[in-house]
């Protein structure tokens, strides 16, 4: 049941309008800037939750949009979405900003927060297993439903609260992952243990995991440039879920998902990802239908330096 709006919300439209203008300005600036840049074509993995050990190419900016349709028992289905701006600061350091939002059917659309993610490659050369340290700061409200990671005792009921109630609570979280990945004979296998701490002192550490495996449809490239060549398609699967918290670790009272995934790397610079996910126990949502679209711009860093007057 949705409660009546509190009186303090009368002032919100003005604040939202201002925030909306700022957001529009930021997006507009990025679009104009990106239009001036060349595209680059990368080889993106099909994973949406799991990370392999590959960094964004230095100086490149990848703009990504992801959407997840989720079924909800005991509540309204919803669509959660996020935008990522991923920048290769160094060959060993990738930094990324996320903006999250969601639309709950028969309810409302809300901005649910932002994340700042950094990934650091720990070893210079390729090894049998390649570790990358992942550090993320999240500032999200209770209406956040992007399910980018499952942690602690996350269950389906967590997403059942109506937006006007859920959006009132804001969390500040630090998330650490160790990204372990290996590519061999065309296959990539990645394992990501996850450790999350709500920065509120009373909250315990929470744990989770994501694992993935993927392989291109063809290992050799064809001599012709083509959108539908087999080497442009990478198929894989992910499994992710919670592992409880410091007070009650384990596989119980949390949710787990299995998700086949596909990426289509188009030579023009676009990448399309599709991944239907299925809850493996009654604690999880029955269906997560994810898709994503991304575009990579080369030499974004150089363009920035030119824009701010650095001599070349």
């Amino acid at each position, binding site marked *: 049941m949705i409660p009546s709006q509190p009186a303090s919300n009368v002032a919100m439209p003005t604040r939202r309008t201002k925030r909306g203008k700022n957001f529009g300005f930021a997006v507009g600036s990025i679009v104009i800037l990106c239009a001036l840049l060349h595209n*680059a074509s990368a080889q993106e993995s099909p994973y949406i939750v799991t990370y392999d050990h590959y960094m964004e190419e230095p100086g490149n900016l990848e703009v990504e949009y992801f959407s997840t349709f989720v079924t909800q028992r005991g509540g309204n289905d919803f669509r959660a979405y996020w935008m990522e701006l991923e920048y290769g600061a160094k060959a060993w350091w990738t930094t990324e900003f996320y903006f999250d939002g969601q639309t709950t059917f028969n309810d409302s659309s809300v901005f649910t927060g932002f994340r700042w993610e950094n990934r650091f490659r720990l070893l210079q050369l390729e090894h049998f297993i390649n570790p990358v340290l992942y550090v993320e700061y999240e500032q999200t409200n209770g209406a956040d439903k992007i399910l980018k990671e499952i942690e602690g005792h996350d269950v389906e009921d967590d997403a059942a609260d109506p937006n006007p109630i859920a959006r009132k609570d804001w969390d500040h979280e630090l998330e650490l992952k160790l990204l372990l990945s290996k590519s061999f004979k065309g296959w990539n296998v990645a394992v990501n243990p996850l450790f999350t701490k709500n920065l509120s002192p009373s909250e315990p550490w929470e744990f989770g995991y994501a694992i993935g495996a993927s392989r291109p449809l063809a290992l050799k490239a064809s001599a012709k440039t083509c959108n539908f060549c087999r080497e442009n398609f990478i198929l894989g699967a992910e499994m992710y879920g919670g592992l409880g918290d410091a007070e009650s670790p384990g596989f119980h009272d949390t949710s787990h998902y299995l998700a086949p995934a596909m990426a289509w790397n188009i030579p023009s610079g676009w990448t399309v990802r599709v991944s239907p996910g299925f809850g493996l126990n009654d604690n999880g949502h029955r269906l997560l239908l994810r898709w994503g679209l991304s575009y990579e711009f080369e030499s974004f860093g150089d363009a920035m330096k030119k824009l701010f007057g650095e001599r070349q």
Partner: protein
Amino acid sequence: MKNVFPFRSFFLVLLIGTGFSLTAVPIASAHDEGAMNSEHDHLHHHHNVLEKTPERDRLRVNPLANDPDAIAAGKKLFERHCAVCHGKTAEGRPHKAPNLRKDEVQAATPGAIFWVLTNGVVRHGMPVWSKLPEAQRWQITTYIKSLQPSTKEEHHEGSQ
């Protein structure tokens, strides 16, 4: 209720500040020394890496050396993944990446070039390319080994 705005501003400024200042440092220092020195430095680093290739890897035989499509496929892959830094004609780009037509690179074994492709030169900005399947890395190696010393026009084009 939380007053979240200071956090957002803080992290936004921190991101932009650290990101761009750190990326600017090596370029600024290279700029002071001049483009020729920078190109020489890049080549020197990459040449060193080629020399450091482990013996076993250096002696690996290119399984696609006689594949009639390998050069064309390698050229396509090179333009897609490598030309951003090395230039469309592999002539290199000042401050970014070395000329792959230079004698030092062309004298390297296919195994050494494959090893550098696989491991990158992370400290100097070249990412690892093991994300490409082994066959595709050999195709790129085949293309690089097929390159001829550059003409002036190509060198100019590569520097753009």
